[in-house]
Structure formats: structure tokens, C-alpha cells
């Protein structure tokens, strides 16, 4: 299966290990992975700031890089949701997948050669969860499900826990994190606190941006707790 790997700009620049894990895992699962060289950003930072009228350049650059692929897969729920909701090309909108969603729905992965002998706290990022429906949400009266948990269940020796408020936002919110700095940080601190009471070693999620925000707070607190993208765990074997 031919898959184009979408590596969001900030993952490319600051979290290459997340994209590497995605690439390796997809290859391990038998995909032919293409990484278009000139990809940059999905355009979400402008659009969510009220400047969707400025995303034309990003949209056409995205099209130039990803036209013709049936599967465009990326490790960031929020960017994927933006493409899915706002990209002008219907073909592209229908071809983008968040990577966990792709593993569960398209590749239908039932087993993995992965081991991660740690206790981790699972952060359910809002855009992945409520936007892409990667898992059920506590707001609705619905049968519980979670594509991410389904994948984590395939990892040996992994112990994952949800915080008490299972799906509260971490407060990143794109440019919200700087324009509403006080609320953003306070939300992040509260989220982390709820994870820390569970004696976890890592905060784990499917959206690198939320993790980046929480990592910034954890490191400011000199906490030994680290962050990991789900995909890094699914690709981990030790």
C-alpha cells in the first residue's frame, strides 16, 4: 500500500523522532511510504487565528505535495482535522488520516511487535477525539470506544491510565497558547497534575502539539516525566 507521510511543520522541526517512528512503523507494517519533500504546514495556525483567507499558499503547497495519494497519513490529529475540514480539494479531504486512525481503520492492525515497559498517562487530544472521533467522549451518551487504546493494548508490558477527567483539554489551542497565556498554562498545569497523581513516567498522546505544551510545563517544573507520541510507543521494542 502506497502511503504519503504528512509531517506537520513543527514536528519536522522540533519532534523529528515522532515522524521517524511513524515512517518506520508504517514500513514495518508493509506500506510503501513516500515523504513529499516540499511539504510545510496545513495552514491551521492562520485559519484558527481568523485568517483562513491567508491559507491559500499552504493549501496549494499541500496539494502540490500530496495530489494523487489515496492515503495521506500524519501524526497530529489537529492538523489532520484542519485538512479534513478546510482543504479546498475534496479528494485530499477524503484521503487524510490521523496515523492511529489509519492503523486501526485502514491497515486493521491486530498485532504489533512492540514493547514499552512503563506506566504512561494517556492524553486524549480534543481535535483527534471529538473532531476525528478517535475515541468516545464523556460528553455524549455513547458506547465507549478508543482507537488509540485499541493500539496501546497491542503493546507488551505497557500500563496506561486515563486521568480522572478523561478528556479535558490541555489548553494548547494553537495561538491560544500565547494570546491567552494565563489560561492556557493553567489548563496545562491542571492536566499534568491529574496525570502525575497516577504515578506515570510519560504523558502520551496522538497530537504532538498538546504534548509540546505539556512538555514545556513539565520541564519548567523540573519534572522527570516525559512526553511521547503514541506512535513512538507503537514503534518501540526493547
Amino acid at each position, binding site marked *: 500500500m502506497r502511503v504519503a507521510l504528512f509531517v506537520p*511543520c513543527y514536528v*519536522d522541526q522540533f519532534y*523529528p523522532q515522532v515522524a521517524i517512528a511513524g515512517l518506520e512503523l508504517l514500513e514495518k507494517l508493509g506500506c510503501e511510504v513516500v515523504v513529499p519533500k516540499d511539504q*510545510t504546514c496545513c495552514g491551521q495556525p492562520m485559519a484558527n487565528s481568523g485568517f483562513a483567507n491567508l491559507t491559500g499558499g499552504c493549501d496549494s503547497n499541500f496539494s502540490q505535495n500530496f495530489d494523487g495519494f489515496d492515503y495521506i497519513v500524519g501524526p497530529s490529529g489537529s492538523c489532520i482535522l484542519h485538512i479534513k475540514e478546510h482543504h479546498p480539494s475534496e479528494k485530499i479531504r477524503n484521503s487524510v488520516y490521523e496515523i492511529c486512525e489509519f492503523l486501526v481503520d485502514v491497515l486493521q492492525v491486530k498485532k504489533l511487535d512492540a514493547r514499552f515497559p512503563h506506566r504512561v498517562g494517556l492524553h486524549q487530544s480534543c481535535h483527534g477525539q471529538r473532531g476525528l472521533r478517535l475515541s468516545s467522549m464523556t460528553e455524549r*451518551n455513547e458506547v465507549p470506544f478508543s482507537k488509540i487504546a485499541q493500539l496501546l493494548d497491542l503493546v507488551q508490558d505497557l500500563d496506561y491510565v486515563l486521568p480522572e477527567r478523561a478528556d479535558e*483539554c490541555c489548553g494548547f489551542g494553537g495561538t491560544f497558547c500565547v494570546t*491567552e*497565556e494565563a489560561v492556557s498554562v493553567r489548563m496545562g498545569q491542571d492536566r499534568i497534575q491529574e496525570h502525575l497523581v497516577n504515578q506515570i513516567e510519560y504523558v502520551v498522546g496522538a497530537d504532538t502539539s498538546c504534548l509540546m505544551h505539556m512538555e514545556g510545563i513539565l520541564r519548567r517544573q523540573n519534572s522527570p516525566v516525559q512526553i511521547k507520541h503514541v506512535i513512538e510507543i507503537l514503534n518501540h521494542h526493547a
Partner: protein
Amino acid sequence: MLNHAEASEQFIQDAERTTWHDETLWFVRSKRDKASKVIPEWEDLRDHASQIKDHVLANLGQYLIEFEAKAKANGVHVHWAKDAEEHNQIVYGLVAKHGSKALVKSKSMLTEECHLNSFLTKKGVEVVDTDLGERIVQFRDEVPSHIVLPAIHLKKEDVGETFHQHLGTPKGNKDPQFLTEAARQHLRGYFLAADVAITGVNFAVAETGEFVVCTNEGNADMGAHLAKVHIACMGIEKIIPRRKDLGVFLRLLARSATGQLITTYSSHFAKPREGQEMHIVLVDNGRTRQLARPEFRNSLKCIRCAACFNTCPVYRRSGGHSYHQPVAGPIGSILAPNFDKKSNVDLPFASTLCGSCSNVCPVKINIHEQLWFWRQDLMKEGLAPAGKSLSMKGMAWILSHPKIYRLAGAMGRFVVKNLPFLVNNRLNPWAKQREMPEAPKESFQTWYQSRKS
């Protein structure tokens, strides 16, 4: 006036109170979760309510005329107000006609929206809010911070102090039961003396001309049953077609609001009792303008349950007053720009777009999507803060040009790695309370190109 971000920063400075505010409202959200989950058809009920409201909005004119005719046939006087000013004048006209110097009012967000209290006070009429929470904030010369729990920003110590000052309760007494009793005794005199009672309206039934007021304290009934004149003020969107539709909305309202099965009182008013005058004031005040905006019209489906407030992680940590509007929270943030874009430009940005609001909403308003649409609308109007347009254009330009993006990325990583003081300072809002991400030596694309070769 402080914008939302500035007001929130002040609110959050009291960390302990912020925790308390967050936990108190989360408790209400949790009660709502429990109450909604024992109803297997909950999601269908939301759908149904949403559809009824969509239908009403699509046929609003016709239902309003039907309602007016039925209400008049019941002996009720019906008034139309195009805006807040006209609404206030109508109410004042009625009060003046009866020579009233004081009136009692049960909770009505519409009268808050119209700033009726200050209008009447200036005319020499004393307005006594009879909802306990509203009376508390009225004593303090504040506005409600929440549409269902108006004094939720206050702790019992604050209420004790307020009552000590205004009702002479013993200093330091913060016993809720004692303070409530003091308020009850205080309000009783006003109930008995008032000639005019104002209530809000939760639902107005087109087929019967009756209206329903939901309260937990019974204060609406106490006022309306004792006064010679009952004035009910309602936004024109409160119409529902049939009495049996109440079965849908009454099941949703209290469960969504507080997790109760139903409000203690769901009082139906159909016609004046003998010797009483009953008036209904139907208020537009921008609603038809909102109705004409396709992406925002369904904000008019709101039944004012405040479930979106209680679930909103931003509201819980910033308090209602940070929204500087009578209706705060997520729903307030999509209603406010309809009144005035410029002074409310911050509100659609007071959200992470997490989407929790849209999913608790009993009438399925796509609140977080409308926040996004308002952002576009307001920026298009040129209301961006200084420098924002330019920085957005710059960012869009860099991200549209792969070569420049690569250069900028490499420079960014270089700075974070080698000149951290340039970014780790208080001028960078990210770094005030967070570390910058650690800069890797190469980007993924660079790694990938060397891996390929």
C-alpha cells in the same frame, strides 16, 4: 475594560480560588453527565430538540404571530420591542402607569441583556432581583457571572460579608442555611408589597399562547402570584410550536443545567387571574440580524442551560466576568459579536476550540464551529489587534514557500539551541511559564534525505 485574556490573568492570580471555581463547576458538569447517561435516548432527545428549534427558526414569523393571537385571546397584552431601548421603555411605561416605585423580578437573562435594572433605577424605580444568586450580585453591584448560577464566582464567606453589609446578618456568619433564611425574610416584604412582577420566559407555546418559567426557588411564582401586574419578557427565539414539545425541552433543560431531573418549578402561565394584568414583551434586539446569518443562526436555538459554561475548561478557569457580557461562556462568545463586533472581538478567541461545548449542548448548537466562523468574520472586518495581521501574513508567506520554510526552521532551531536567551524570556509569552521545546540538531526532512542517500 479588560479583554478576556487580561481579565483571566487577574482571575487566575488567585490560584486557590481558581481551583475552587473549576472544581465547583466541574462538579455540576459531572452531575449533568450522570443525569444524561441514565436516559438511553439522550442523544435522540438532543437531536429531536435541535430539529424542533431548527423548525421554529425556519418559521419564526409564523409562530410568533400564532403565539400573539393565542396569547391575546387568553387576555394577555402582547408588546413588541425591536431593541433593548424599546423593551425598557415598554416595561417602564407599564410600571409608571401603575405608579409603582418598586418591583420584583425573577431571573431573566433578557433583562440583563437589555440592562433593564440600571434603566429603571435611573427612572427612580427600585428593582429587586428575587433569585437568591441574582440578589447577591445585585447587592454587590455586579452582574451575574453565570446564567444559571449567577453568584458562582462567590464563596459563602463572600456572601456572608455581603449580607452582613446589606442585611445586617452577624459579621463572620457564612452558614448557607442561615444566610438563605435572611434573604428569604428580606425578600418576603418586597414580594408582598410589589405591584409589578417581572419574570423571564423559558418556553412560549405557539399553539396555546402560554409560557413556561423554570425556577428552583419558586420566586417567579411568588412574584407573579402576588403582584397585580405580571410582565414576562422574552426573546423572540423562545417560541416552541406545541405544548407537547415541552416534554422534550423540560427533560433536557434541568439535566443539562444542573443534573436535576427537572427544575423544582416549571410554572405554566396562560392567562391573568381575575383582577390581574398580564403582559408579554417580545424582544428582537439583534435576533433577526443573527437569524439572517446562515453560519450563526442556530445560536438562537439556545435554551440557556449553561451546560457549555460548566464544561468549558476556559470558562472554569477565567470566571464569568472575564467575558464582560451578560451572557458569558462559550454561548456568550458566539452571541456577543452580534451585538457589537469591536468590543467583543476577544471573545471568539477565548477558546481552544476543544469542542466540548458543542457536545454537551442539549440543542446541538455547533458552538465551537461558530467561534471559528466569528474569528474569520472579525478579522475580515479589520478588528485584529495591532501587528497580528502582519505577523499572520508573514507566517503564511513563509509556510507557503518550502525553501524559505526550511531556512526559517533551521534558523529557529539554531536560535533555540544556541541563543536560548532570545526566546526564553518574558517577552515570549510561551516561555513565561513553559520551556521552549528542545531543538534537535536536524529536522525530520534533513534526516530523511540523508537516510535515502
